[in-house]
């Protein structure tokens, strides 16, 4: 178990290093001058030269990379040009709000996805199953920003039952939470349904039936438990995707989290904040993957012994 954990942890560090390097390379190697990019097209030559010096852009790429890695390890991403304060500080301040949204979406996704998936498996190839499958297809294919706008149109503008955006009480979490959860619901429906259908043919289910358990107990005590193992993994991985998807949903609902800050910073050319936000979300994603890997190895010994 320790060896397995160390292997996964090293891989997580490696992935983080890769993400940091990609961000560095994209900013430096893309055609155009980063200083020009930050200052905009109406900056004077002198201003650009000064910023180039300040950013260390005149030094060799390898030296820049070394300095950059050192800064990243110390969580130093420089200051925000807009707010004149620490870029990473700004991002971490907004992070709890994004996390809140992602957790709500995760809960909605798990409850709805597993419940509908079980329903589909119990009524396989019948009307309820077909409806659930169509619902999964729709949730997966409809653009989340459009679903969000439709929710605002119906629930805020027409019915006036929920607020269209902003941060506040629990009622303001419902619409963005459901919007963010829908793709996850689709994934979990499919996974639960097929997982349950696979498990049903196993010998231990027959044993459970043979000893006279009611069908309800067979499903709830025996079948679902084993179908749950892949759900744990996938739900963990999807949590990282929720952090990415939150960027769009936050923009639609004016939710003041990291995603909104990211998009605002992009239009304000505040690249220090952009870098900090991207790397914080990526870091969260990698960390969650690591936790899931370890958890999975714990739940299912076949995994950690397999490799």
């Amino acid at each position, binding site marked *: 178990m320790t060896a397995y954990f160390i292997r996964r942890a090293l*891989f997580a560090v*490696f*992935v983080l290093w*890769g*993400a940091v390097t*990609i*961000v560095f390379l*994209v*900013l430096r190697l*893309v055609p155009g001058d980063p200083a020009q*990019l930050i200052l905009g097209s109406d900056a004077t030559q002198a201003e650009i030269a000064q910023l180039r010096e300040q950013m260390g852009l005149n030094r060799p790429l390898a030296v820049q990379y070394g300095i950059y890695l050192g800064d990243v390890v110390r969580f130093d991403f420089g200051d925000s040009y807009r707010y004149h304060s620490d870029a990473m500080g700004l991002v971490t301040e907004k992070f709890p709000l994004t996390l809140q949204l992602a957790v709500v979406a995760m809960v909605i996704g798990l409850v709805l996805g597993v419940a509908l998936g079980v329903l589909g*498996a*119990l009524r*396989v*190839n019948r009307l309820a199953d077909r409806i659930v499958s169509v619902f999964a*297809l*729709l949730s*997966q*294919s*409809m*653009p*989340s*920003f*459009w679903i969000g*706008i*439709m929710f*605002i*149109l119906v629930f805020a*503008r027409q019915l006036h039952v929920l607020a269209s955006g902003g941060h506040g009480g629990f009622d303001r979490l419902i619409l963005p939470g459901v919007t963010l959860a829908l793709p996850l619901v689709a994934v979990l429906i499919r996974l639960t349904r*097929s997982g349950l*259908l*696979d498990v*049903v*043919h196993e010998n231990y289910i027959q044993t459970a*039936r043979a000893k006279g358990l*009611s*069908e309800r107990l067979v*499903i709830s005590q025996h079948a679902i438990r084993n179908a749950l193992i892949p759900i744990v993994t996938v739900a963990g991985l999807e949590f*990282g*995707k929720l*952090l*990415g*998807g939150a*960027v*769009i949903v936050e*923009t*639609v609902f004016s939710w003041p989290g990291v995603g909104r800050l*990211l*998009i605002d910073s*992009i*239009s304000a050319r505040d690249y220090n904040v*952009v870098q900090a936000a*991207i790397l914080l*979300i*990526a870091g969260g*994603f*990698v960390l969650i*993957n690591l936790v899931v890997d370890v958890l999975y190895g714990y739940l299912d010994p076949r995994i950690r012994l397999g490799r």
Partner: protein
Amino acid sequence: MNRSTEQVLPQSADDSTPPAGEVRPAARSRVRIGRLRIIVSLAVVAFYVVAAVVGPMLLAFDPVATDLGSRLKPPGFVLPDGHTAIFGTDQVGQDVLAQMLQGARVSITVGVATLVLAGVIGVAAGVAAGYFGGWLDMVLMRLADIQLTFPSILLAIFIASILGPSVVNVVIVLSISNWVTFARVTRSQVLGLKSRDFVDATRTLGARTWHLVTRSILPSVTAPILVVATVELGHVILAEASLSFLGLGTPASTPSWGLTIANGRDYLSNAWWISTIPGIGLAVLVISFGVLGDALRDRFDPRLRSM
């Protein structure tokens, strides 16, 4: 308790394969449903392609024209020049249908161009990794791992924010985030093919590597790649719309669906049609590609289900 277990949890119809030589009625009806799914979704896709090619010729769209007299008119409004705006007009008096037809052109062009670019890069990387193995395989697949542990929309947002909005840049950005899928599928196929007898036979006859790859290996990986491309096309169109919605995709002079939907956000109270109708158009196209991809996969290569 007296209900038969088969009734409560019947066998999944999806995972049984008919024995060779005889086709059972259930299997035959499944083939028929599969064919129906392919035909219907192909018809929808064909309709969009025709609309994208012919539509803008019939209903010209001028991105700089404004007609304030007929702004925010509901669907069915007759414009001063005599034609009916079937889907209403937007905030500057443009016909929404004309914008959607132009948008279909942009979305489909971006989608296909991205798949070609990502496909070429991905297949080349996959063949290189699978056929030659060794350190090349190691480097390419670790790169793929890094990218997969990074939410793809985040990477796209980051690169797009630096490249700036343009159609070509969207294609580049989306290709970068999509090559991995092609590389992985190609690699796994090549690994299986490499040691097959017909490849060995060709090699024994003295064929060079280039001949082996282009004449023996590539023709055999075409089918799975095309299936993956169909599934991915829907995702790419969705990603393009999301980027454009955030203002990071196509520039304002080339209206895409995401841009039109974003513009309509500010007029939800008095002009619901601007966001709603292009969103439905987008969702129907993405759903069709999803259904088509699933049906082709079930028909030609069910093993790709896990990809």
